């Protein structure tokens, strides 16, 4: 079936550098996307979201880019810090029908390791 996937399973980043985490999605009907951060022993934590009527959204040190043409999503983290070390997931959802609401589909995740 259709699924959300990530290109890089592990990303090693030097402290202070910018990180870019990529995600490919195959369900062209998906119209809402979220990035989550999951630290060891914890549940996923909401980072930022974006709707399909946007191509860019910025938060504090994070930016999400959406390219619907190639069904690609990315998360950029500026000035990566040791506390950013975690697994990052993208998740998609189609909000257009009652049956699909709440059914987030997650990718496998990318492990980000921040080195000093």
């Amino acid at each position, binding site marked *: 079936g259709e699924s959300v996937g990530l290109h890089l399973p592990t990303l090693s980043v030097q402290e202070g550098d910018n990180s870019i985490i990529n995600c490919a999605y195959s369900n062209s009907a998906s119209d809402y996307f979220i990035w989550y951060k999951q630290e060891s022993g914890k*549940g996923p934590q*909401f980072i930022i979201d974006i709707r399909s009527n946007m191509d860019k959204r910025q938060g504090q040190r994070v930016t999400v880019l959406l390219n619907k043409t190639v069904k690609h999503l990315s998360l950029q983290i500026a000035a990566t810090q040791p506390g950013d070390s975690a697994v990052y997931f993208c998740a998609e*959802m189609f909000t257009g029908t009652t049956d*699909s*609401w*709440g*059914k*987030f589909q*997650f990718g496998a995740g990318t492990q980000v390791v921040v080195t000093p």
Partner: protein
Amino acid sequence: DAGVTQSPTHLIKTRGQQVTLRCSPKSGHDTVSWYQQALGQGPQFIFQYYEEEERQRGNFPDRFSGHQFPNYSSELNVNALLLGDSALYLCASSLGQRTYEQYFGPGTRLTVT
């Protein structure tokens, strides 16, 4: 303000047994969703409860069932456990069925031997 809580933290069961996991949503939230997260994988949606009814369901067999109580807390029940049911079970709460932002609990680690 209490976040999402889950119990127990860890659980070991034998194949064929039944298990019940519990979740208390974030204060003020009325919707609870359950996810299964296998090791090294992303969470997989099991089902969502709102107004004490199952509203949405993912691709999980009937062995997986749930319940939501009037205080919005929820239980996940798994019958006839299989080795493949070993995973981290996550509960997420939100306000209203049609809201986007979900808050996750720390999960219950279930090991089936």
